[in-house]
């Protein structure tokens, strides 16, 4: 049994940032990188399935990104993933999420996992579509925004609860192999142990070039322009905490008529 967990290195902008000269992205100097928050939960889901089955299922993490994207894979290894794969090709610079899904599909075809657990979305661009695009390329059954699931290694189906708008849940049985996108809150992700972190630093990362996978990586969109929107801004209440609180009290009284 094998579980594939695609993860993403996400970009967080510094407080002040500049748009690149070509107007199509933010200048890389103003970006800090981290593991996508949703991917902590999908990895934890995989680890719990692995542990419940006595450790036999193999958990493989994969990311599409340049050399320094390796860091997020080491984080996953430190938390217990068995193997880590990084795919890159300079031609993927500026690729959209559907192109990334095509690359991931190349890896998934080789790995032939029983389950693919992706995050619902990434915290930087929030497309919420890579996992489901991947399911299409593999022709696998799928469910998005999974907030709870019942599954043991080897089951022919997985019972998921999709988290709908307004707090409602929708229970669905999905045949496996399947692709699920995992929602925040489905579990409590573990922290990596110091020992895990130390060991992960020395573990190999398998590297593939997109060309090795031999597919075409067409995007379905292209950035035409990126800009900072004019934002409405709250009327700021200045002063000491006592003065600020006094003004808040007034606003509350006006609004509630109390």
């Amino acid at each position: 049994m094998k579980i594939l967990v695609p993860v993403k290195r996400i970009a967080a902008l510094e407080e002040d940032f500049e748009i690149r000269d070509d107007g199509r992205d933010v200048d890389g100097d103003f970006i800090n990188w981290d593991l996508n928050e949703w991917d902590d939960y999908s990895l934890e889901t995989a680890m719990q399935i692995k542990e419940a089955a006595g450790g036999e299922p193999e958990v493989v993490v994969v990311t599409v990104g340049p050399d320094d994207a390796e860091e997020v894979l080491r984080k996953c290894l430190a938390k217990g993933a068995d193997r880590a794969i990084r795919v890159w090709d300079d031609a993927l610079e500026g690729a959209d999420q559907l192109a990334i899904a095509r690359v991931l599909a190349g890896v998934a075809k080789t790995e032939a996992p029983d389950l693919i657990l992706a995050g619902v979305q990434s915290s930087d661009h929030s497309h919420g579509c890579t996992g489901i695009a991947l399911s299409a390329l593999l022709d696998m059954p799928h469910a998005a925004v999974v907030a709870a699931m019942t599954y043991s290694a080897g089951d022919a189906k997985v019972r998921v609860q999709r988290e709908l708008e307004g707090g409602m849940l929708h229970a669905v049985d999905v045949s496996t192999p399947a692709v699920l996108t995992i929602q925040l809150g489905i579990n409590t992700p573990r922290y990596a142990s110091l020992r895990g972190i130390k060991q992960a630093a020395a573990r190999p990362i398998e590297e593939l070039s997109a060309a090795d996978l031999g597919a075409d990586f067409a995007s379905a969109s292209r950035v035409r322009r990126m800009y900072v929107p004019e934002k409405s801004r709250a009327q700021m209440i200045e002063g000491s905490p006592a003065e600020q609180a006094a003004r808040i009290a007034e606003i509350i009284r006006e609004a509630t008529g109390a």
Partner: protein
Amino acid sequence: MSGILVVAEHRQGVLRPVSLELVSAVQDVRGALGDKVTVAVIGAGARAHQQTLSMAGVDELVFIDTPDAEFDPEVTEAALAALAAEIRPSLVVVPHSVDSMGYAASLAIRNGYGFATDVFGVAADGAAVVATRGGYGQKVNVELEFPGASTVLLALRGGTWKPPVDAASPAARDFAFSAPASRSKNVEFISPPATNDVDMTAKEFILSVGRGVGEEDNIERFRELADTVGAALGCSRPVADSGWLPKSRQIGQSGKTAAQCKLYMAMGISGAIQHLAGMKHVETIIAVNTDPNASIFSVAKYGVIGDMFEIADELEKHFA
């Protein structure tokens, strides 16, 4: 170029309001991208929504019967692929929703459509679609184009366009397709536990706490504050996910829609997209946050840059 396809969304027999917002969203581009606006409803009993969808701006309603009344991603995708193959739309719009997250990307990649999600601006440049969405945690706007795509599929953000107000009598027809053998099975809907705790949807004044509350032991402090000022205590997703407050108190798109809320005080909430989207209907939002760049300040009417604990202590004195 032959028209625009709008996909309506319904659940448990009720049309989701975003469906009609989508009809408004495409009106500005109908000249450039195609004259005819077709609205499709998928599911057993789809015809039940005919009257609700018979609004100005809709030229044609298409009902697609399926084995189940409720959503199945593979059946929905197959229905839309078949319909799109017939009408060859230049633009297809679906709600950016939990359901569409289950099929839209699949539909787009299998059929070679241009594609973008969580779009809040739709325009035409000549006969080409231009979509605007947020990027980098909504800190920038991103304009997207779709070179070479003869059909573009956009998932549009709810609450962005106002639904049409005038009724009309669009043509209506059924459309048949061969539904694939489904590989998932609809089991049941589970309502959030009916708590005797509180009904946040009915509250007019809500005081919510976010990650800034720091630890579970501090919740009590804000429960007291909420009581003192006459507010119901709510929270953001991370607080509910940590189990510090029940899910029934979570405010925002994925939690309870605080439909009646008129005054919202957000303390220590930086404002994830889903939280902001779920609260933007509220007339007065007061935000207290230590981070001057917190996204919540872009939707709040009043902002306080400061420590939520200090503000709590001071505020309480005014309601003693």
